[in-house]
Structure formats: C-alpha cells, structure tokens
C-alpha cells in the first residue's frame, strides 16, 4: 500500500474524528483555574492542595462537556433530594424494552444542581435508546430512533446568558444529539457508538 494511502487510511480511522468540542464555558473555567495558580508558588504544598480542588471542578466540567453535559444549577440539592426528584422524573421518561433505571450514584455529602435528577435521567435514557438502536435490526432501530427523538424533544436548551450550572443543555450538546439522530437515520453508527463508549 502506498504511503499516502496508508496515512489516509489512518486519518479516516482517527478516533478523535467527530469528537464534540469542549464547552466554551468549561474550557474557560479550566483556563481560569490554571491561571489562578501563582507562578512560582510560594507554598507549593498548600498551593497544590488548593489547585487540586480547583482543577477537580474544572476537570469535572470538561469531563461533562466531553460527555455532552453541563452542570445544572447554581442552587444546590442534597443527595436525598436528587433521589426523590429522580424517582419523579423517571416516571415520565420512556425507556426501550428491557431497559431499567439505575439508581444515581450519589455522594451522600455532595451537593447537586437542581436539575441533576432530570439530567441524569435523560442521560440514562439516551444511553438506553442508543444501546437499543446499536444492537437492533432495522425495525428495532426505527423504534429506537423514534424513542430517542421523543426524548430529544424534551431536552431544554440552557437559557441565553445563563451560567453552565443553572440548568439546561448547552447548544453544542443539543447539536451533538441532533447529529446523532441524523446519522441514525442514515444507519450510520459512528456517533452513537462513540457516545455509548464515552458515556454509558
């Protein structure tokens, strides 16, 4: 095989192809967290400890951004509240045959955004419909596509000007879901499989 063809073959199979862009806000949050570190640090140990905390938050935001998520609220709920909300919202969201809800894995001492339950449920439902589509024949795929399109219709965009943890999906996340729907209609599994592997 000629070398240019070989490189083209590799580029065609680049695992980062189709990687959703990081949320602008998450990216900015990380930049700010890094810049908050004094250079050089006067007290390296204290500074590192503080930085780890800040970076953890920034990394979380990036992880969620890569996974197509935004933090949901600036007003926070307890784990108990999130569990209660989860039971309520999951009663309103259909899942494909054979799928079941997983109890949210929550830190009992943690604080969660007010939309955490809804977003977690939508995330689980997205995984379930994508798995159902990925594993199905044409009839099952049609059913899964319809199911996910209904779910997508319930996903609300974050209101303009809102901070990322005030609830709602970032526009890039919604665009990624729409792109997945377009691919599903063509029978193309790339984005669905990428999402499943990254998030489910």
């Amino acid at each position, binding site marked *: *095989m000629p070398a240019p063809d070989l*490189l083209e073959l590799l580029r065609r*199979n680049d*695992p*980062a*192809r189709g990687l959703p862009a990081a949320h602008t806000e998450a990216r900015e949050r990380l930049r700010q967290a*890094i810049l908050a570190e004094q250079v050089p640090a006067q007290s390296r140990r204290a500074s590192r400890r503080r930085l780890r905390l800040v970076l953890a938050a920034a990394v979380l935001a990036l992880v969620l951004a890569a996974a197509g998520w935004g933090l949901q609220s600036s007003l926070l709920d307890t784990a108990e509240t999130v569990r209660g909300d989860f039971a309520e919202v999951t009663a309103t969201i259909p899942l494909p045959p054979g799928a079941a809800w997983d109890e949210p*894995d929550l830190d009992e001492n943690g604080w969660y955004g007010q939309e955490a339950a809804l977003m977690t449920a939508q995330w689980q439902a997205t995984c379930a419909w994508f798995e159902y589509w990925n594993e199905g024949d044409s009839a099952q795929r049609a059913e899964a596509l319809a199911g996910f399109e209904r779910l997508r219709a319930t996903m609300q965009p974050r209101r303009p000007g809102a901070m990322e943890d005030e609830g709602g999906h970032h526009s890039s996340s919604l665009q990624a879901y729409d792109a997945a729907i377009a691919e599903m209609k063509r029978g193309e599994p790339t984005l669905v499989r990428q999402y499943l592997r990254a998030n489910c």
Partner: protein
Amino acid sequence: MPEPRAQEARFNRLYERHFDAVRAYAWRRAPSLADEIVAETFLVAWRRLSDVPDDALPWLIGVARNVRANLHRSDRRRDALVQRLGPESTAEGDPLASVDERDALRGALAGLSEADREVLLLTAWDDLDRGQVARALGCSRANVAVRLFRARRRLADLLTGDGAGAANDRPLHGGVSNAGS
C-alpha cells in the same frame, strides 16, 4: 522575567491555539483520561511557561505523553467521575469507516512496536511534521525518519497480509498502556 500580564497573555494564546489539538491527542490515546491529561498538561505549561518554545505543540504533546503515563500509574485514574467515561481499554473515540477496516487496522497497529506506532500516529492523527515529532518524543529527526519508514512499511505489510502474527484484539490506540502493552 516577563511581566505577569505578559505571561498570562502568552499562556492564553497558547491555550487558545493548542487546546483542541492537545485534547484530541489525549482522546485518541486515553479517552477516559483525556480531560485530566488536558488539564494537567496546560497546568505544566503555565508553571513552566518560560520553557515552552515558540513551536509549542510538540512540547505540549511531549508533556501530555508524560502526564498520560503518570496517570496510568496513578490511583487517580480510578476517580469515580472519570470512570463514568468508560474503560480506557475501549476505543470509545472510534468512528471508523467500517468494521472490517477498523479490525484490520487495529490488528496491524498492534503489530508495530510502541515507538514506531507513536511516530506514525503523531504524523497521521496529530498532523505533526518530522521535526515536531522528534521534539515531542525527544529524539532526533533522523530517528523519526527511520521509525516512520519502518512503521509505514511494516503496517503496509501487515495490512496486505505479508506480515506475520500481527492480528490480535488489542484496541486501536497508540497508547502506552493500551495497544502497547
């Protein structure tokens, strides 16, 4: 020493220009650790800003390689939040043209040495030229040229069935602990 504002401005330019490339690099090699790798790589860049050369991407990728290796050795990879992204041994960022092509390529890449594979993938996926690959890996351009030639020839042989014993089920990543171990 440059003024703090000048340092910050330089870092901002670096961050804006190379964030996506570093993130893509990390995603290709260790998807479940990608965001940690990006964060720590740019943190190192900020702390060592005076060491960052004008052509910064190879330097950043070299740092990202080290960060990735360290994270693989660290308990931090078991962080629950990051685990949500899935096991690192799966090819999650794996939008391949076809299953057959993917499988063939995965097997062939696994038949390369880690060093040769990294040179090839830094060229093909990360779009570095030979000089940049050399700086990222800390070796000479001549060494890169040799590795690249060898890797291309070996990969072509493996893909056309002339190579022996290459096919296996190792995942399609050029990572230290993925395809290379």
